[in-house]
């Protein structure tokens, strides 16, 4: 579908349309109210209308917490704009609250004077009690600072679908579409993409299909005809580079990136994992891709999951495992085995709030040091971190390139925010993707090996190239029979060795091999002045907030620059040099200061931290305020 085909429904009402550059809305309700679905539709439609978008789904860990309670509130935030944007927005311009609990837990994020649409039918005494309200907030003065629109959504929706003879329960399940229709009117969105989606989604259930379509239209028409709202808004198309787009979440991008990399490396992909929030969607995606040569294994536990991935890599496939922080704990010993045996392996960690079970559905960046050091012995691995949902594609691809190129485990540190957040993605041309070179060892090449008692040549699995990379010799290849394992290896031969000097040599060699990756990755680039007062150094999913805050600071003429690490181990070779060009280095992280600890330890720079550990991404304003503070130092 092209943007040109999408017409905004012609309004019959005299209500004025106000042009705004951007808007942030949130749809909030009970976790059974279909808010994620409605939010996804709004996002999709807005993207297709040509806006730049960024989203933040926020849902509870419980699938169905008791209805109407604060614990069960689910929300979906969409920031859409006629200019380029990088975050889901700090403050809401419009909040839709389908019940008192949703109102209570989301109101604090609504801007003063913001539009507040509530389902007035859900504010009976029982609903209020479950949300902890002693007085109905619609009837006291507590909401007077907002533009409140109390709409009988339940009742109006039931009327809209009454001809279809649905049960009350079935009818009420459409009310998210009524609310969505109203917000579509409010922001002048076309109904077409969602109507089309309803057609295909409910193709086999005509009455449900018709009900949802009617609910959507009824919500729209309510806004258009009742004149309940004095204004509605237009957010024009953004100046986006021409091309074909889709929306993409971080988890989708990771799955697609892994498949693309496996094709470009000409290796079958074996994705072996154990279900865990927020990484499971990667498994769901890949399990559907068997016709792309993808094999998935839902293993019996996290350890088996990585074990099978290591086994697949040993046997010449692309072994990948995915999990979240608690799973990394369980996989640690096996990661050490992959480091010791120097096998390619990609380990996806979609970080969530920790420690322990922590906050399963909330975001955090607190596994960096675990990825760096969370194993016995000196056990270095390569670590990458995507900076946006679509960057998950590039980082997945890069992880595969480095894993097979350097015969090493590579971590991909995504997070819950990137995993579930979405943005438009310019669809790449597969023909332009680089090849990933893979060279399996063959017998009698390069004179590798010595003679054994049978007069045969013994293959040397730890004879390294100039970059210290050992050969990948795959079972089934005649003449390369060899044994590897977790015991210390003798240099070159790979035989078990307890020799003290050999052990130190091997420890240093493994470390140097990982360090050598720095020669094969791009340098750290800076956006903003090449030298100045403050360098804001970020990593991973905080990119959007940091880049926006830095742009605002730069527009004010401040000497503030931004650098973002997508390669955490090794870091780009010019990192130290970049850091020294600024008077102060500010490191915002969704943890207690993990990158800061590494930067301080490695570069002896007294970096300043901005640390937030609330299961939520940074607001742009929080970083802006910290930059202002640091400038005063």
């Amino acid at each position, binding site marked *: 579908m*092209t943007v040109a085909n999408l017409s905004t429904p012609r309004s019959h009402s005299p209500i004025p349309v106000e042009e705004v550059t951007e808007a942030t809305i949130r749809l909030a309700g009970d976790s059974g109210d279909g808010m994620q679905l409605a939010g996804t539709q709004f996002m999709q439609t807005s993207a297709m209308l040509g806006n730049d978008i960024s989203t933040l789904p926020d849902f509870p860990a419980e699938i169905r917490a008791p209805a109407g309670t604060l614990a069960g509130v689910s929300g979906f935030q969409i920031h859409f704009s006629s200019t380029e944007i990088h975050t889901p927005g700090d403050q809401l311009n419009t909040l839709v609250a389908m019940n008192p609990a949703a109102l209570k837990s989301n109101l604090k994020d609504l801007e003063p004077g913001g539009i507040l649409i509530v389902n007035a039918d859900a504010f009976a005494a029982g609903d209020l009690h479950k949300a902890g309200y002693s007085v109905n907030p619609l009837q006291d003065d507590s909401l007077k600072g907002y533009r409140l629109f109390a709409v009988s959504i339940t009742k109006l929706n039931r009327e809209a679908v009454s001809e279809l003879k649905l049960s009350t329960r079935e009818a009420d399940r459409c009310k998210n579409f009524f609310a969505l229709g109203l917000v579509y009117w409010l922001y002048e969105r076309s109904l077409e993409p969602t109507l089309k989606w309803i057609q295909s989604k409910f193709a086999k259930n005509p009455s449900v299909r018709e009900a949802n379509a009617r609910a959507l239209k009824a919500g729209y028409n309510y806004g258009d005809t009742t004149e309940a709202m004095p204004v509605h808004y237009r957010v024009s198309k953004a100046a986006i580079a021409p091309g074909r787009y889709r929306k993409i979440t971080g988890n989708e991008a990771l799955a697609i990136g892994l498949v693309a990399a496996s094709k470009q490396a000409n290796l079958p992909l074996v994705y072996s994992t154990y279900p865990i929030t927020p990484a499971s969607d990667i498994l769901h995606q890949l399990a559907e891709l068997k016709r792309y040569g993808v094999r998935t294994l839902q293993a019996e536990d996290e350890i088996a999951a990585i074990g099978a991935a290591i086994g697949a890599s040993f046997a010449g496939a692309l072994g990948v495992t995915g999990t979240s922080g608690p799973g990394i704990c369980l996989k640690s010993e096996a990661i050490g085995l992959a480091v010791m045996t120097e096998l390619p392996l990609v380990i996806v960690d979609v970080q969530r709030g920790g420690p322990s079970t922590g906050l399963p559905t909330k975001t955090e960046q607190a596994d960096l040091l675990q990825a760096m050091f969370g194993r016995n012995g000196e056990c270095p691995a390569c670590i990458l971190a995507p900076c946006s949902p679509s960057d998950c594609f590039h980082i997945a691809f890069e992880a595969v390139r480095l894993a097979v190129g350097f015969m090493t485990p590579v971590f991909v540190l995504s997070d819950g925010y990137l995993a579930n957040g979405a943005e438009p993605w310019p669809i790449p041309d597969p023909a332009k993707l680089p090849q990933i070179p893979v060279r399996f060892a063959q017998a009698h090449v390069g004179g590798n090996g010595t003679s054994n008692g049978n007069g045969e040549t013994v293959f040397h699995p730890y004879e390294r190239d100039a970059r210290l990379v050992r050969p990948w010799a795959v079972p089934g290849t005649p003449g390369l029979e060899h044994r590897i394992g977790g015991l210390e290896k003798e240099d070159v031969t790979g035989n078990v060795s307890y020799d003290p000097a050999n052990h130190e040599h091997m420890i240093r060699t493994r470390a140097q091999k990982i360090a050598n990756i720095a020669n094969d990755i791009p340098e750290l680039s800076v956006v903003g002045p090449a030298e100045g007062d403050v360098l804001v150094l970020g990593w991973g999913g905080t990119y959007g907030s940091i880049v926006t805050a830095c742009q605002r600071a730069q527009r004010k003429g401040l000497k503030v620059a931004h650098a973002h690490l997508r390669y955490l181990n090794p870091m780009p070779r010019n990192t130290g040099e970049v850091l020294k060009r600024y008077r102060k280095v500010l490191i915002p992280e969704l943890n207690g200061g993990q990158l800061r600890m590494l930067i301080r330890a490695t570069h002896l720079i007294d970096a300043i931290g901005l640390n937030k550990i609330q299961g939520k991404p940074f607001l742009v304003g929080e970083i802006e305020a910290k930059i202002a503070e640091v400038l005063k130092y």
Partner: protein
Amino acid sequence: MSTLTALHTLSPKELASDQEIRWCPGCGDYSILAQMKKALAGLDIPREKFVFISGIGCSSRFPYYMNTYGFHTIHGRAPAIATGVKLARPDLSVWVITGDGDGLSIGGNHLIHAIRRNMDLKIILFNNEIYGLTKGQYSPTSRIGTRTKSSPLGSIDTPLRPISLALGADATFVARTIDIDIHHLTETLKRAAAHKGTAFVEVYQNCKIFNDGVFEYATDKSVKADHVLPLQHGRPLVFGKDQNKGIRLHGLNPEVVDLGNGIAKDDLLVHDEKADEPSLAYLLSRMVHPEFPECIGVFRAVERPTYEHVLNHQMEETIASRGAGKLEDLFASDETWIVE
């Protein structure tokens, strides 16, 4: 154009690696290693197709001594790693070498799941009822009362019975053999190799240092015929030096009976390794010395599609019906739009 060359027949010597063997003198592992080489040499499988994967423990050093592909992994995880090898390369002959601690304690979960999936793996569990490499603690198969450094007053855990466990996990091939019963061991390994699916073999293995003689009743030539019952498919369960004893079913329980005095072979249980239900095999796995003779041989050998076969079949079917996946389709697998 293809060239047919006569398949080189491997000799056991060609399967020996150049590494010095470091098991204790008199260890049962030596015999298992020797019989393994003998069994594999006769299989018409080229050497490079064999992969030996082990965990941690004395038995798990096994791959270092085989001149095949080998992977000495981490404690208990060999079945998981072997699963990955088999997923990537179904054509390889993949052998898991494990022990009672490795396979049944720390790795118990992987063992049962590998078995239930019916991956085409050969899992050989060396059972010496003791932890050897950590110097003599009781293991999950140690008999109640076993006195060790970690159980000075006698172990109080109920031992796991490896065969019962494998049957409980719906194993398609389950067998038991004894380290120094050379012929039986070789034949059992060959049968395991021929099975398509997970073949689980328990080997009674003597630990000379920490648990010497624990299987003496089953290995001492003067008494073993009375304590061991070699299973043979389709044959009644007869044992004893004079072949004058048998196993009869009494209700749901087995009982030892003397042949004669009105009890004939026809009255005895007949072994059926191909029975659909593993109930009788389970019953046999519960027969423990000294009340019963202990069975050796194949308890169960049934056919069920392997995991990797079904997986590959699914892949082939979806490719046949929808075509092989192309990246441009994958990239555009969600709603797309054009910005002009």
